[in-house]
Each structure stands twice: as structure tokens, then as C-alpha cells.
């Protein structure tokens, strides 16, 4: 017969020992467990995704029509943007300025999302590409052309993405129109918040937030989200804004890991 007190004590010691494992080894253990669970997670995801697609086929067909129309409009916008980009390049060259916008991304790896953190308190994705495909820690992860997160752990065949809406995430960002900078972080209840906006800055709902490029993790100018509401924290000298990410982080299926 097991003595309860001894078992509880042993469990506490085991958990403390686990917490004392250095972070690189912790990542190794997690990566090993992840590679073991990758296949069953992928199978369950495929079954659920197929069922959800079948249930929502009308919705999907309507979305397809909407997106086809939007694509037509986007082509025109893209053409104009390309013109503006080329003009900007010419003018920058003429003025001899250092290019503020990074050159086109060097490399991009498309990965499928095979799992999501099942708890509500953290927002982490599991993707089906790892070090064998050239994925490494701290690579920015995009959805479309907007920032979704960054790689935090990378195993041989799978990697983990920390979404910008996770409370552990911190991204240096700025407001596209006023160029005021701040820090974007995830909030426990979901969504993102931008802090440290100067009180003098004019911020309005709908303003675009993009990466500021400081810290070296994320290239400058990646779209992140739009401001939903803004307020001044009592007793503080800065403003805070709730930001809606441009990427639909709850429904990501494919992502782009770039560098």
C-alpha cells in the first residue's frame, strides 16, 4: 500500500527537479515529446478539419467568391504599390539614404499548422517543419504578409511558434501613420495590446501597427494589426492601445517562416 504523504512528497520533488532542468535541455525534452505526438495530433487535426470543412461548405463557397473578388481588387492595389515601391527605390538611391526597409526576404519556408496549444492561457502553434527544412529559433512567422509570431523551439521535423497574442510575446512596433513606437504584447484574454505610446501621439481606431525593426528579431515594416481602442493609463505617462492582429490567429492553417 502506497503512503500518500510519501507519494505527494516524491511528486513535489520530481516537479522541482523538472523545473530545475536547464532551458536548452527542457527544449530538447519538449522537442522529443512533440515528435512522438506529432502523428496522432496531425491525424486528429486532419479529421477535425475535414469535418469542419464539410459542415461549413456553404460558408466556404461564399468566402471563395468574396476572396476571388477581393483578389481582383488587390491586383490593382498591388500594381500601384509596386509603382510606389519602385519610385521610392529610385528616390532613395538619388538621395543616397540608407535603405530603411529591408530587402525582400531572403528565404521563406511554408509550413502547415498541425497543432495549437489546447489551453486558453497560452497561444502556441505546432508546425510540421523543423531544422531539417531550415527552420531555426527566432525566425519571424507570417500569415499572408502580416506578422503572426516567431519560432521559439525547433526540432528536426516540427517547430513551435509563439503567437503575437501570447502573453509571453513582446514585439517592438510602431504606428504606421505617426511613427510612434511601443511594445506589443499578448493579453491573457486574447488579442494584443500596444504599450508606451507617448501621450502626445494622436492615435485613432483603425491606425495600422507595424514592426519597428528594433531588437533585430523582426524586419522593419511588417504589418501586425490595427488599433481597436486607445486610452491613457491612470498615473502613467503613456497611452495604451488594444490591437486587432491582421492575421486570423485563431484559424491559421499555413504559415510562412521567413528570414
Amino acid at each position: 500500500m502506497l503512503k500518500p504523504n510519501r507519494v505527494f512528497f516524491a511528486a513535489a520533488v520530481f516537479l522541482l527537479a523538472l523545473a530545475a532542468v536547464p532551458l536548452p535541455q527542457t527544449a530538447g525534452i519538449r522537442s522529443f515529446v512533440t515528435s512522438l505526438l506529432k502523428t496522432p495530433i496531425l491525424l486528429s487535426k486532419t479529421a477535425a478539419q475535414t469535418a469542419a470543412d464539410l459542415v461549413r461548405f456553404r460558408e466556404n463557397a461564399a468566402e471563395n467568391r468574396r476572396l476571388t473578388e477581393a483578389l481582383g481588387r488587390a491586383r490593382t492595389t498591388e500594381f500601384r504599390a509596386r509603382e510606389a515601391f519602385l519610385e521610392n527605390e529610385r528616390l532613395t538611391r538619388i538621395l543616397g539614404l540608407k535603405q530603411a526597409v529591408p530587402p525582400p526576404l531572403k528565404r521563406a519556408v511554408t509550413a502547415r499548422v498541425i497543432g495549437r496549444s489546447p489551453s486558453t492561457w497560452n497561444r502556441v502553434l505546432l508546425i510540421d517543419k523543423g531544422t531539417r527544412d531550415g527552420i531555426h529559433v527566432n525566425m519571424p512567422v507570417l500569415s499572408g504578409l502580416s506578422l503572426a509570431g516567431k519560432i521559439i523551439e525547433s526540432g528536426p521535423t516540427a517547430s513551435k511558434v509563439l503567437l503575437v497574442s501570447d502573453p509571453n510575446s513582446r514585439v517592438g512596433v510602431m504606428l504606421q501613420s505617426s511613427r510612434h513606437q511601443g511594445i506589443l504584447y499578448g493579453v491573457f484574454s486574447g488579442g494584443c495590446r500596444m504599450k508606451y505610446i507617448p501621450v502626445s501621439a494622436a492615435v485613432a481606431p483603425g491606425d495600422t501597427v507595424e514592426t519597428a525593426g528594433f531588437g533585430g528579431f523582426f524586419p522593419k515594416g511588417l504589418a501586425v494589426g490595427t488599433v481597436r481602442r486607445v486610452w491613457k493609463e491612470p498615473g502613467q505617462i503613456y497611452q495604451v492601445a488594444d490591437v486587432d492582429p491582421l492575421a486570423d490567429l485563431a484559424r491559421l492553417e499555413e504559415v510562412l517562416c521567413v528570414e
Partner: protein
Amino acid sequence: MNSGPKRAFVCLFALFLAQNAAQYVFPESTPPLVLIGLLFFALSGGPLYGLALGLFAGIFFEIFGIGKMGLQMAVFGVLGASAGALSSKIFRESLFGEILLPAAANYFAAVANCLILKTLLEADPDLWSALGEAFSWRQLILTLLFSPLIFSALRRVSSGRGGAAASRLGVWR
């Protein structure tokens, strides 16, 4: 290992896969299926059984965690052991055992995680703000809806053998 505990571990793993898959149906908020399953088995098996199952269930959430390991295992272990300790006081088929306890346990897990997160990120975590931030209507409704369904399904799967198997593990009541 006899079939009762083995069945419980397999059920928890299946519930983890189901919870992972459920995110494609409920993208905004997922029902806490693993937690509900853990409470079901812990309520029939006692604190040691609950602790063992809680530590096992915590492993699944650890793989999605970042930083130090063991926090999710600790939270689920405490929940499993606490539910097990209540097994002599709460009837598993009662309204409290089947519906209110899972909702309360899910809220406790969210508050515990919120506090852990705040402790790691901030110097001075505030319990009151954590209580507010951890509360989610969506989670509450999903837990209340799914809990009786999971309990009923697991009752059929385990067919009352969990308690007998757990007592063979040396359960302390």
C-alpha cells in the same frame, strides 16, 4: 498495470487529441476536455490516482508551454489530487460533481496559469486582476455544456471499474 488505470490513461490521451481537434470547430475557445476527464477519473479513484493522472495529463500541455517545465503538470496534479480527495464527499453523478466542479476547476486552472504567468513576467502579480483576467464566459459555457456529455461517455467506457482499479493502486480516502 491492470486495465482500469490503463483505460483512464488512454481516455485522457484520447481527450487530449479531441481537445486539440475541437479547436477547429471552436476556434475562439476550446472546451477543457482533458480537465473534465481528469476530474471524472479522480472522483472515482482518490487523491493518489488523481495526482498520477493529473501529472500525466499535464505532460500534454507541457509540450505547448514555453520556458521551464513542470508548471502545467503541477497545476493538473493539484487539481487531480484535490478532486480525488473530494471523492468521498462528492457523488460523481451529482450536479456538483458533474457540472459545477469542472467549471470551478477550469477557472482555478486559468487563474493559476494567469498568476504563474504574471509572476514570471511581472515583479508584483495581483491576485484580483488575475481573477478577472482568467474569467471567460465562453469557457464557462463550453465547460457546462461538455462536462455532462464527457462524464456520461466516460461512465460508459469505464463502466465503474476505475474505483476498483484505483483501490488496487493503494488509494488513500
